[in-house]
């Protein structure tokens, strides 16, 4: 079957461009023309129909020179490139491009761990390095540093950080913990941020700033450049580690949990990326919906109660951890018992008490920087493989938590889906992650999920809640909600796009930022 191509590119132009790229970096690193390997670049788990967003080709460079050669050809023919690091986050689109026909620029071969400095606790990595890979490297070399993995450990460190992913240790804000980038612009210009711009520096990975504007953020969640190296701060292995779970009996407890946790987070009593997790999220790691309910629509309260009883879970389940010398942890744990543990109906569980609980165990691993894949088991809740994450941000207040929870739960129930969610509690904010799971083998259900997701974006925005990242299919809609002062920010993004990438070859449409030649068709800002 002939590849779908962007409408400005003829099959002949495309073929010539791909041949030139293959000549530049080696034919074995180019996938196209019905090669079965192209299948691994789909997003087959989204709310989009069939094999939407299938790339026309994939090209895998091995370094800066390869990338520069590819960019030169892409500029000549205006071939749209979609860079990925490992392309593993299927809740947001995986490796698939924004539009069918783009050429995926797969950075998987650039998977070198360039430096690990145990004294200053950082690593310098290329974009193809996965959490598993860095973890295994540290273990193998007996380096006493912890990484902060995303829940699926096969994800890429650079990709997750650029997409503003969060983790579970005290280093859970990944972008905050990055230090120094190397970037290739669409015209091939290579530069380094921060201290990396000083030729003889030893400070690139220890000080985040340089002299002048801090440009790192411009290259996160954007389509202005390709990040080819990134420094990440790593956590020194602490002398002690104490994960815990507190279960809560009532849905309404979410408000008081959130109010109680805020001062504990702002004051760093709880140092790590803490999570308030809904019952079904925890349960779905271990059981499927049909084991408790075989009817249509959301699972009834009676079944929820049965799950709570069977697995000793709460309607809400708060996970966090303490780190440090044991006497300090014991003291802090007493503060936790006196606050979060004092909420009526709360029960605090230790690691020993939950040692056979798969949900506790995978979170305990994540909070000590050990990557794993257990959370993928969530997908089995309904079967059928469909899943997509809705992720609005709010301040850490009980009122906001309940408002978001009730709004999303009401709509998801109206549309026949379960509410399955968690609140990732940062220092001052919460990332509310609602995992919309659906049976992708059921066409009507897939369409219903798509409709619900679009509705949630608009309703959340109207209430003042913006999404911090989203699936490919909804990037324009989310971008549109950031509309203050007549979309001034997105108009600026478009000006930056035109300046950095005048031919519009790099990830057109990512985050709703379209290049000039596609703007008339896609953009809403003018």
């Amino acid at each position: 079957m002939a590849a779908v191509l962007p409408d400005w590119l003829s099959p002949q132009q495309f073929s010539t461009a791909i041949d030139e790229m293959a000549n530049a970096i080696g034919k074995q690193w180019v996938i196209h023309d019905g090669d079965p390997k192209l299948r691994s670049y789909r997003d087959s788990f989204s709310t989009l129909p069939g094999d939407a967003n299938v790339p026309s080709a994939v090209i895998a460079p091995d370094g800066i020179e390869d990338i520069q050669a590819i960019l030169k050809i892409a500029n000549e023919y205006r071939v749209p490139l979609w860079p990925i690091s490992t392309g593993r986050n299927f809740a947001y689109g995986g490796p698939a491009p924004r539009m069918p026909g783009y050429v995926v620029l797969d950075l998987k071969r650039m998977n070198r761990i360039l430096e690990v400095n145990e004294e200053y606790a950082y690593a310098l990595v290329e974009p193809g390095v996965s959490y598993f890979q860095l973890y295994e490297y540290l273990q193998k070399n007996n380096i006493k540093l912890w990484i902060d993995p995303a829940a699926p450990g096969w994800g890429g460190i650079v990709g997750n950080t650029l997409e503003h992913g969060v983790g579970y240790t005290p280093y859970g804000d990944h972008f905050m913990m990055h230090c120094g980038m190397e970037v290739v612009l669409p015209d091939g210009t290579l530069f380094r941020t921060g201290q990396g711009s000083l030729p003889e520096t030893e400070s690139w990975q220890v000080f985040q700033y340089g002299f002048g504007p801090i440009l790192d953020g411009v290259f996160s969640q954007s389509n202005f450049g390709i990040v080819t190296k990134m420094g990440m701060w790593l956590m020194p292995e602490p002398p002690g580690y104490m994960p815990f779970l507190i279960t809560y009996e009532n849905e309404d407890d979410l408000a008081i949990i959130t109010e109680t946790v805020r001062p504990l987070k702002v004051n760093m009593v709880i140092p790590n990326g803490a999570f308030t997790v809904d019952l079904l999220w925890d349960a779905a790691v271990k059981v499927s919906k049909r084991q408790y309910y075989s009817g249509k629509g959301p699972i009834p309260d009676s079944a929820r109660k049965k799950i709570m009883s069977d697995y000793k879970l709460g309607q809400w389940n708060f996970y966090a951890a303490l780190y440090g010398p044991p006497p300090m942890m014991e003291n802090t744990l007493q503060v936790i018992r006196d606050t979060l543990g004092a909420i009526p109906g709360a029960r605090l569980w230790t690691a020993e008490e939950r040692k056979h609980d798969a949900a506790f165990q995978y979170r305990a691993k994540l909070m000590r920087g050990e990557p794993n894949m257990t959370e993928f088991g969530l997908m089995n809740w309904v079967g059928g493989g469909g899943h997509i994450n809705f992720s609005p941000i709010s301040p850490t207040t009980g009122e906001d938590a309940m408002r978001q929870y009730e709004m999303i739960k009401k709509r998801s129930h109206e549309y026949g889906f379960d509410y399955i969610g968690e609140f990732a509690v940062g220092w001052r904010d919460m990332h509310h992650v609602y995992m919309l799971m659906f049976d992708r083998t059921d066409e009507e259900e897939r369409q219903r999920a798509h409709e619900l997701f679009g509705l949630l974006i608009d309703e959340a925005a109207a209430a003042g809640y913006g999404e911090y990242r989203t699936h490919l299919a909804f990037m324009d809609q989310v971008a549109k909600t950031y509309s203050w002062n007549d979309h001034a920010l997105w108009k600026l993004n478009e000006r930056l796009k035109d300046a950095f990438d005048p031919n519009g070859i790099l990830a057109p449409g990512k985050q709703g930022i379209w290049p000039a030649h596609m703007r008339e068709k896609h953009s809403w800002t003018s």
Partner: protein
Amino acid sequence: MISRREFLRGGAVAGIASALPAGAVIAATQAKPTIAFDAICDTRYEEGDQFLRTVSAQAYRVHGLDTDPGSVMPAIADAVAEGRSIAGLTTDAALLLADQLAAAEGYKLTYKGVHKHLSDDQIEHQLTLGQRWQASIEKPLIEADSAWPEVIASLMTTLVPDNQPLVEHRLTATAKRHPNSPGHLVSWILQPA
């Protein structure tokens, strides 16, 4: 349900495989007149055990999965490294991981069955397979009741070398759901291109 201990002890040559050096596994399996495919099943469920009992007689190696779907990843790496086909009865999550890893090495999904309990007594089999197998699979599946995983396992041996254009076929049958069944499993074959 077969316990993990029994599974490793003797039910399947392949179960032993994960506990033995690779050389020992090959020695144990080379004598079997089989098509070279690995089998993967979720032994948390009765369906997985049923599948295992039948397929272990034919498979080069069998791998059991647990709560962590990531446990499928080393099994796929083993099979792909040696170019063997892979057949499975697993959850969707395990298939997602298996398919992504295998597809990156050029493997095709040449068969997929979605087995979905519509109620505690009724199951829908949604099969995507070579056209010529449609007729032969329907009757045994309908008659199998809750033993359907054994029918699927039997089919694997014939499907593995198959390379026909795929068609989708749905059928509904009476089948009592096992008490611990997740109610939704997928059977599948990944083959090198």
